[in-house]
């Protein structure tokens, strides 16, 4: 039979029973739609991270406790070789290439003041912190060396904390209580936005590290030491310098491994990028499974329709259709349905990705590759899952098929 005739027969068969065809296609529609939406979310996230990386300064260096060789990007959990204030002091003294060094002591607590309370992160840092982070003041001032030496109870608020506690009012000069200790607010930071991981960088209260260590009850430790260089070109040399100073400070023997990890902004970005790549793959896998389920749905309905259409097959055979004709008819039917379903799925995927972007504010990105892959895949699903029912139909004996009620 001519291909056009086959497609005509298949087309008639599909339009003749619209409900059945729609049900058959539904799995593919949802599957392809899901693949496109999910991959669009994943790719969008990757793009967004890329943008954030491009915005970030590239001369930031982060020192965290724990060897980097222990399970890749270790955060130092479970290792007790902590970072100490002495490490920071030594870096401060001996680091030739560093434009600034600051410890970051992290603790979480309730900040009470202004109109209510707000659970946030307290970072105990040194005076060089705004320079290292390239972070300007929105109002007020940052604390200085005398505040640190004097263990003064002063605090600088991130934009989010300021907004939540003092909606619109000027926070500078007000008081907040952290673990029942009153702190005087001397400044508010400019808004900085989210990190690549989606964390709100403005949801923070900065205070002198000495004050956080000594005035706030509870367990505190130095989560990281931040350093910066004058120019991005200095980073490799600066990292090496930090390494030597830290090894000396931690008294590490010549052939022993580092018990700390030094990363620059690019490393961090790579890690985040890796995470989103994994996430994209994961999303694609989930969506792929739904496509597979859609395929099985096609097979089910095709199988049911072979049974339901046994008489039709018998009639076609009685007037001269060969087994091969019936096989091709069923195959073409399932491929045509898969492709139509795939096309509708692409359309729904596009709209879905737009809707997701609209309602969540996430970045979504549709690549032509995704669309191609989804379409080719749905055609394959059609062939693969259409084949078994088609073969079943073709193997029917005309008399038995005709006798079927």
């Amino acid at each position, binding site marked *: *039979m001519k291909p056009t005739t086959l497609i005509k027969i298949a087309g008639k068969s599909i339009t003749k029973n619209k409900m059945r065809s729609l049900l058959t296609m539904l799995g593919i529609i949802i599957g392809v739609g899901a693949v496109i939406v999910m991959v669009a979310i994943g790719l969008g996230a990757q793009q967004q991270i890329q943008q954030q990386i491009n915005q970030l300064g590239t001369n930031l260096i982060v020192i965290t406790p724990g060897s980097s060789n222990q399970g890749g990007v270790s955060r130092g959990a479970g290792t007790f070789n902590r970072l100490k204030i002495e490490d920071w002091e030594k870096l401060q003294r001996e680091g030739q290439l560093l434009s600034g060094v600051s410890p970051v002591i992290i603790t979480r607590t309730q900040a009470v003041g202004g109109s209510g309370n707000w659970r946030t992160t307290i970072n105990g840092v040194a005076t060089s912190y705004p320079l290292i982070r390239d972070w300007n003041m929105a109002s007020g001032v940052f604390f200085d060396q005398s505040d640190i030496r004097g263990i003064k109870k002063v605090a600088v608020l991130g934009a989010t904390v300021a907004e939540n506690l003092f909606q619109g009012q000027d926070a500078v000069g007000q008081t907040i209580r952290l673990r029942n200790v009153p702190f005087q607010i001397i400044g508010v930071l400019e808004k900085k936005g989210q990190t690549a991981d989606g964390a709100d960088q403005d949801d923070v209260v900065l205070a002198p590290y000495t004050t956080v260590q000594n005035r706030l009850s509870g367990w505190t430790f130095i989560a990281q030491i931040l350093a910066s260089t004058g120019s991005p070109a200095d980073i490799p040399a600066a990292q090496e310098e930090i390494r030597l100073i830290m090894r000396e400070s931690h008294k590490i023997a010549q052939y022993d491994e580092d018990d700390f990890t030094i990363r620059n902004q690019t490393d961090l970005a790579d890690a985040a990028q890796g995470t989103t790549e994994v996430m994209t793959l994961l999303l694609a896998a989930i969506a792929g499974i739904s496509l597979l389920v859609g395929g099985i749905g096609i097979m089910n309905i095709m199988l049911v329709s072979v049974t339901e259409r046994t008489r*039709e097959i*018998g009639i076609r055979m*009685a007037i*001269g259709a060969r087994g091969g*004709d019936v096989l091709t008819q069923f195959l073409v039917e399932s491929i045509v349905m898969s492709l139509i379903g795939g096309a509708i799925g692409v359309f729904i995927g596009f709209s879905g990705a737009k809707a997701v972007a609209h309602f969540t504010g996430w970045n979504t990105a549709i690549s032509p590759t995704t669309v191609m892959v989804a379409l080719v895949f749905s055609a394959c699903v059609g062939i693969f899952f259409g084949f078994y029912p088609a073969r079943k139909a073709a193997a029917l004996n005309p008399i038995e098929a005709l006798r079927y009620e």
Partner: protein
Amino acid sequence: MKDSNIVIQTSGLQKVYTMGTTEVKALAGVDFTVTDGEMVAIMGASGSGKSTLMNILGCLDYPTSGEYYLDGLRVDKMSKSDLAVVRNQKIGFIFQGFNLLARTSALENVELPMLYDRSGKKQNTKQKAIESLKRVGLGERIDHEPSELSGGQQQRVAIARALVTDPALLLADEPTGNLDSRTTIEVMALFQELNDAGMTVLIVTHENDVAEFAKRIVELRDGRIIRDEPVVDRHDAKLALKKFVDQQSVLV
């Protein structure tokens, strides 16, 4: 070895159905010859093997043993797909239950056999289908689906479908079994008309009245031919129809 005017020739045709351990001999050696232009009625009680014979003659099924030549071609050992071609080219099969494709117009139903035609004769399928429908008296209503047609009209569509490929042979298994007596006579008139035009026709029936429209009656019992004779006083279906109509009007 074959006369050119022999359409069907079978010898020792047997068909055994095996169901588990029991065997049913539906055909027990049928020797049967039909020449061009005949109109044969195949009779017999229910279960005597009429349908079994028709299915084999119609190349829908294989005999268990014996030989079958159709139009000079040995078909009992042909492959399934070759048989499909034979069904498409040489045979028009008409069923008791019409067997039209549902949700498909009369025209498309009649076009269908030409879609499976590989011989290249399938130009103007629509035109041929319309002609075939006109031939059976269905000039109008060709866009109607089977569910919108009466039984007689459906059977006419089925006959048009059987005719459309110019087969050597029309086979009809109880074609009037689902029709009322008037429509039965109408359909038989159509068969007589086709036969008069040269078509070879085989009709299975268990009604004497119907069989008498044929030129020859073959009777089966237990899978064997027990009677094979010409019809002495052949009924003319057109006359019968006129008589029938007159009777009706008297009754009314």
